[in-house]
């Protein structure tokens, strides 16, 4: 068990991990200061026969110091975070030309739509697949999150991305895979009795391979419709 | 006398207590003010939800007067305001120690409050008859919830007021101690105020 984060595989994951470790170091220091202080005081100031406690109501200077140090530290953390947050989730953060992917959460499946030849979603030639998210390497992807019933949460731990899919809302979120291989997509918001089974596999291909896969699946779907599409 | 009501066992058990100067008002009045703070938050949650929902989907609301009967409700609003006036009169009579006036004004307040509830029940029956029910979209949902809980508050107020009136008829309120009248009055004015807000945002806008 470790406090270290697992390997990451998306463009901005390193920024999140950097902030995480920064906070881990800062809070780690505070943790040690307090815990060591407590243990030290417990040993040093334990009751002794005829012991007498120091009669004081406090020192304003000490209080000012720890108040202002804490305030400065948290404000710095806040300022550092605000920029990263804005780059990941800000309203204008989605890179131009990102590949659109539709993610529709439904108890207890992810219906993932890929654009057809025109590169647009919702134009009738979309390809919809259950629980399989395929992505090209090093290309920004913008996922359009929707939900059929309850709130679901789109979570790919390796990409450090999470976003709720709320019924009645359309929420867009972007990410850019930086490693090929397979990863897992989980639902992170309690959505009913099958919540724990709401898992999909994420496969990141090299770009040419991704295109090949997409064409192949598109042909197969045209030849024989899948049961899932008739929802 | 200080405590006009009979000394209960609990009062007897209290030692003679001096005390630190507090708010400067007696417990019941302070308690009612504090409780009204809670009530403000309750109506805030309902009204806040209404505002958010309405801004989200303004098209789900019919224009004022199309579904709801504004004239009847306007008369009802006037009734409720009148009851606040009679309440003020009742309190003033209590301060003067005018028992007859106190009883009459209290009785008037009870009757006007009850008729407000009556008109609201009539209004609901009419609306339901027209097919406007709580499940009728966001409009029905918010309308019945907000006005319903206000009506519930008025009903509780009328019941408490009947109790106060009954005590007034027993001569329990004096010129020096008429806390019950003042405390129920605070509640009553609050409920009246909430209605003016509700009438404006639910019926007129």
């Amino acid at each position, binding site marked *: 068990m470790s406090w270290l984060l697992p390997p990451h595989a998306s463009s901005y994951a390193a920024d999140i991990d950097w902030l995480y470790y920064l906070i881990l170091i800062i809070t780690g220091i505070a943790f040690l200061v307090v815990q060591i202080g407590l243990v030290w005081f417990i040993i040093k100031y334990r009751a002794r026969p005829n012991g007498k406690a120091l009669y*004081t109501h406090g020192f304003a200077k000490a209080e000012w110091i720890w108040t202002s140090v804490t305030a400065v530290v948290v404000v710095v953390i*806040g300022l550092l975070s605000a920029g990263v947050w804005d780059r990941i989730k800000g309203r204008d953060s989605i890179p131009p030309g990102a590949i659109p992917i539709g993610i529709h959460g439904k108890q207890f499946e992810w219906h993932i739509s890929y654009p057809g030849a025109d590169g647009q979603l919702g134009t009738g030639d979309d390809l919809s697949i259950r629980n399989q998210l395929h992505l090209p390497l090093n290309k920004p992807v913008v996922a359009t999150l929707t939900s059929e019933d309850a709130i679901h949460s789109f979570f790919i731990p390796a990409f450090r991305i999470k976003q709720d899919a709320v019924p009645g809302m359309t929420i867009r979120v972007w990410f850019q895979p930086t490693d090929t291989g397979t990863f897992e997509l989980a639902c992170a918001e309690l959505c*009913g009795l099958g919540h724990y089974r709401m*898992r999909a596999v994420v496969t990141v291909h090299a770009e040419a391979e991704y295109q090949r896969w997409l064409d192949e699946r598109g042909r197969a779907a045209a030849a024989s419709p899948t049961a899932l599409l008739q929802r | 006398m200080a405590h006009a009501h009979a000394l209960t066992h609990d009062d007897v058990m209290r030692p003679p207590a001096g005390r630190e100067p507090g708010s400067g008002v007696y417990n019941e009045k302070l308690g009612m003010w504090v409780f009204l703070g809670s009530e403000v*938050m309750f109506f805030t949650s309902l009204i806040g939800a209404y505002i958010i929902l309405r801004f989200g989907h303004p098209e789900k609301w019919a224009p004022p007067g199309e579904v709801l009967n504004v004239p009847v409700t306007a008369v009802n609003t006037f009734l409720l305001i009148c009851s606040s006036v009679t309440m003020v009169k009742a309190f003033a009579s209590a301060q003067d120690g005018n028992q007859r006036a106190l009883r009459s004004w209290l009785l008037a307040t009870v009757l006007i409050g009850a008729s407000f509830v009556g008109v609201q029940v009539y209004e609901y029956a009419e609306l339901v008859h027209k097919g406007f029910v709580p499940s009728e979209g966001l409009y029905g949902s918010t309308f019945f919830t907000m006005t319903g809980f206000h009506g519930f508050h008025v009903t509780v107020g009328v019941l408490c007021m009947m109790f106060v009136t009954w005590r007034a008829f027993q001569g329990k309120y004096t010129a020096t101690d008429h806390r019950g009248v003042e405390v129920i009055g605070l509640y009553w004015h609050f409920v009246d105020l909430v209605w003016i807000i509700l009438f404006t945002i639910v019926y007129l806008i």
Partner: protein
Amino acid sequence: MASTAAVVHEPALEHAHADDRPFIRKYIFSTDHKIIGIQFLLMSLFFLLIGGMLAMVIRWQLGFPGRAMPGGGVLPETMAPGGIVLPEFYNSLVTMHGTFMVFFAIMPLLVGVFGNYLIPLKIGAPDMAFPRINMASFWIAVPAGLIMLAGFFVEGGHAAAGWTGYAPLSANPELTGVSLGQQLWCVSLIILGLSSIMGSFNYITTIINMRAPGMIWFRLPLSIWALFITAILVLLAMPILSGALIMLLFDQTLGTHFFLPAQGGQPLLWQHLFWFFGHPEVYILILPAMGMVSDIIANGSRKPIFGYTSMVLAIIAIGALGWGVWGHHMFMSGMNPTLGTGFMISTLLISVPSAIKTFNWMGTMWGGNIRFHVPMLHAVAFVSMFVIGGLSGVFMATTPVDIYIHDTYFIVAHLHYVLFGGSLFAIFAAVTFWYPKMFGRLMNPLWGKVHFWLTFIFFNAVFFPMHGLGAQGHMRRIYDPTEYEFLAPLQGVNRMITISAFLLFTAQIIFLVNFIAGWFKGAKAGPNPWQDNGLEWATPSPPPHGNFPVTPHVYRGPYEFSSPLAVDDDYLPQSRKLETDREPAVLPAGD
């Protein structure tokens, strides 16, 4: 109001101690704040036990997913056929564990028990401002608890949408298969809200209006300050929840559309309302703990509290800032990301008063003459554990990091460090500290220490590794983590946590036995076993009906330990008059 002569109370002198009320008025439908406090104590310890038992079932399933639970065969088929916990029952378990612990255990333990028991005693009042309303607030809470329990036995099972009841899962029975259970959940919490509101305006009025002569605001013990601010938070936050619950209940029963998106309702509206209540609620669950721990640390260290004024200001600041941070629960909800940044900053700022309090507790111990009685052990553990909970809060307050750890076991670890490591350790401290005042006897100190150390060790064994689980991305509320490849390697940790949790639960039996045994067999306590300064220690244990034979006058603050003015002792009670003390100005009795 115009007032009233002191004469009224004259008959009281003769009767001051003649408590001839019948049993039922004395112990069942009592208006005495002390009895009501003890009633709340018994009720909430019962629900604490229930909540703990639910947690054990949760842990069994997580440690040994899909395996029949030993003894689980007694559960009906709709919950655990053959002892195998069903996913829908698991969801009910996590929902009800949270609900019972937050609303029926921790909150009544802190606010119901110690608010009732301590406020009049510590401010020198004979009782609450409204004793009958106080009684009603307990007897309203009881049916709320029974209704909540009843949900387990209705068709469709109990509420299963999480203790936060996120709509539309909670609003549309079709999505969970739970209809009546979810409705009972709403009704119970609405009733409980009424009980809490009745309690809180009582506390507020009492603290403002009924302090003994000389008990000026800045002589109030920090526990009372904390309970005062908490009461204000309860008063203003609970009605928001009631309003939201009413709308949720109507969505289920009357077919309204507040939170159902099909007709334009907004699922996020529920979250906003819930957390607008919920974040003040978080402080409701920790402020009284902080206050009581302050009292106990000063007592144990035999020193005045370090920085009394800044402690008070920190409590007020936490109470005030607590209204502006609710959005930090919703960073991933689809709320406008710009709002997210605002909520992040306000959330980070709230760590400042928390840090002030922590350093002040350490400052209090610094240079002390520390006595390690059982309450002090728990209080120091509170500081140590609360710090971990507070520091882990910085991670999720930071929006980018929260993207990753939101809704993972990191959150579970954090909230348990605050609510168990924080609130519950404080409750153990407070119960052992005021137990002699409540029952006139002491709990066994040896078994108290055994319980403390076992709890401390196993608590950390259970919850510290959860940070690591969260760091690996382990989602919360997951019925079977082994379904995920990236979580399967963590199963060993999950199992270790489960075994530790069973041991943690077992250790609580010691507390329970000690609690009950102390009632009959504990050593006689005497009025002031801890040599404390508070007014409650200046009256017999347990105090008589009416609390004080003679209304105490207050001459100083509550933390004058080791004062040079105290010649013989190392403490100086608030009500002991020294020759140099002036009499406080006394307002006549009555109104």
